[in-house]
């Protein structure tokens, strides 16, 4: 597909696979091998289960605050399936499914949400930046990576995610503009999950779509059914092709929904109705993808049951490992402040060590 031909102001959403699992746009259906399709499905399932379990653990007081991905898995695995190995993933904070697809082990993601920085020490060859909490700021990192990639003569793109709320931030504006001016290979994906904590999309912007924000940067923008992993794949693939061809960044708005709370500290019943949630549950990306795979005869109930059981055991085991993982030591919290510790920090650490020894800590 040619992204330039898409008018974000026309109010049309790109969809290939509908909520019933039917192909609605045959000509755009990507020709993915079953390995890729299954990896997409299994990653969505793993994310869903990991998410559900983490919420349980959190309610039991065993897990700390985290940001559930439930409902947005399709908006994340579609793009990552379109990415090449050398491409970078620059996440915000709700991208568990994307990160898993890119190859980050669940254990690390759990460790991070469990409150240990070591969870962010990803295998560097995976090219995934740590979770980014300050809204919008990750776009500028992606713009920098994309600039570097082009300067270095590489064909690696930077894929970055942001929320609907994040599009209001000044950093969103500066990052997209920076990437556009230099035709840097960046793909920015807005996961418009309709809310920023309690604030509805309508209070975030008066624009009809968030995709149309692309117009201000002179780049293509496209609104996609974000719960359709195939459409997300196709749109991202087209954007990546553009990026690699030196044509610059693309803005993709994925229309999706956060089925869970904002974080475990949030009570979504305060600001949205049960009907609304139900309506979106019917559009669940996993349900429709499962139907699609079944129709394609590469998946079935038995396999699903088996995978589900297996994954639940796996997640449980991982969480146990995480619970037993040693907490950060004094060295760990001090020694990454600078590449080589300063004299002052060494002194502060030594003093603290001494206090611990006097008190019998550590």
């Amino acid at each position, binding site marked *: 597909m040619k992204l330039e031909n898409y008018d974000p102001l026309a109010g049309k959403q790109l969809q290939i696979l509908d909520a019933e699992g039917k192909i609605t746009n045959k000509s755009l259906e990507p020709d993915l091998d079953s390995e890729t399709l299954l990896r997409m499905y299994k990653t969505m399932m793993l994310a869903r289960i990991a998410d559900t379990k983490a919420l349980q653990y959190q309610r039991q007081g065993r897990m*700390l*605050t985290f940001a559930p991905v439930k409902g947005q898995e399709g908006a994340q695995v579609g793009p990552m399936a379109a990415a090449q190995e050398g491409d970078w993933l620059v996440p915000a*904070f709700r991208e568990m499914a994307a990160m898993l697809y890119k190859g980050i082990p669940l254990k690390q993601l759990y460790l*991070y949400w*469990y*409150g*240990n*920085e070591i969870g962010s020490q990803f295998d560097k060859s995976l090219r995934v930046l740590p*979770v980014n*909490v*300050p*809204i*919008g700021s990750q776009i500028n990192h992606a713009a920098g990576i994309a600039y570097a990639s082009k300067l270095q003569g590489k064909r690696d793109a930077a894929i970055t995610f942001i929320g609907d*709320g*994040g599009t*209001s*931030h*000044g*950093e969103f504006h500066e990052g997209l503009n920076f990437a556009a001016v230099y035709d840097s290979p960046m793909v920015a994906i807005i996961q418009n999950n309709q809310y*920023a*904590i*309690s*604030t509805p999309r309508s*209070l*975030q*912007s008066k624009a009809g779509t968030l995709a149309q924000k692309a117009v201000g940067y002179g780049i293509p923008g496209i609104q996609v059914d974000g719960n359709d992993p195939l459409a997300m794949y196709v749109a991202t693939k087209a954007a990546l092709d553009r990026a690699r061809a030196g044509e610059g960044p693309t803005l993709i708005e994925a229309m999706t929904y956060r089925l869970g709370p904002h974080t475990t*500290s*949030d009570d979504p019943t*305060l*600001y949205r109705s049960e009907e609304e949630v139900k309506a979106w549950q019917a559009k669940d990306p996993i349900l429709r993808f499962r139907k699609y795979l079944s129709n394609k005869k590469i998946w079935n109930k038995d396999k699903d049951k088996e995978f589900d059981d297996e994954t639940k055991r796996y997640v449980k085991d991982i969480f146990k490992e995480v619970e037993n993982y040693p*907490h*950060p030591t*004094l060295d*760990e*919290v*001090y020694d990454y*402040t600078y590449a080589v510790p300063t004299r*002052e*920090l060494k002194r*502060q*650490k030594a003093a*603290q060590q001494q*206090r611990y020894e006097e*008190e019998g800590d550590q």
Partner: protein
Amino acid sequence: MAEKTLLQAINDTLAQQMRKDERVVVYGEDAGYEGGVFRVTAGLQKEFGAGRVFDTPIAEAAIVGSAVGMAAAGLRPVPEIQFSGFMFPGYNQVAVHMARMHNRSRGNYPQPIVLRMPYGGGVKALEHHSESLETLFAHIPGLKVVIPSTPYDAKGLLASAIQDDDPTIYMEPKRIYRAFKQDIPEEEYTIPLGKAKIRRKGKDVTVVSYGAMMHDVLKAVDELKDEHFSVEVIDLRTVSPIDTETVIESVKKTGRFVVVHEAVKTLGLGSELISRVNEEAFFHLEAQPTRITAPDITVPLPRGERHHTVDVSRIAREIKRVATFE
């Protein structure tokens, strides 16, 4: 009188001041309909309408910058930053406009703004949710910076800040939002900005602190109650302007000085206090002034956070060391 948590005291005060003065407006990310992620502004939109109490886009520069404009147009804005760690994108507006517009316009546009934000650690939070950034405000001429430690003070100081014509950063120690209740008057009262409070009278060592840490200091002092020395505990309440007089008077009496804060050490408030003590009470000092602070590292995620936290036993031991130094 009524039993209130610190959080309730703030909520009550906002409502009370809004009732009294229709120029007061309250807004921020999720501050309207939901009443804020901590529910500090709960109920306000219902009572005062979505014009005076509203949700904003995620845009801290707009939140602070619009307040500068609203103040110029005659309102008294009380915007909220969701966590102090997210004030940075709005810091340009804070430091170059809110703090300076009165000076720049030679008095034409005072900035009666109260920028509220929860701050501080110890709540097992995500990155950027545990910062103590008071230095970044107290260093800027033109700002006032308030950090209450009790529901009583929270109410009186907030009322003053809202009524004050200068821009105030109002930092809320979220660790003690709901930690305890205090019997406080239901009616309005004010506590002057820039006045410290002596929480314990003593004569052998002066300990200065503020915010959530105040309570750890008091616990530490309680632990020391059987010692042969007595501790004077000062709650700054306003970290800019600093009530130097109260501190100096105390140090002149005790000759010993300890400052406790959860912000990092280098260029934390402690450094300024020690310098003022040097400047005004140097020859009264009988022991070297001492800082008890977090180390100069980023606040760790929860599993490592204790390495960053100043704890009661450390405070007690250090106070004792200074008090008994010969």
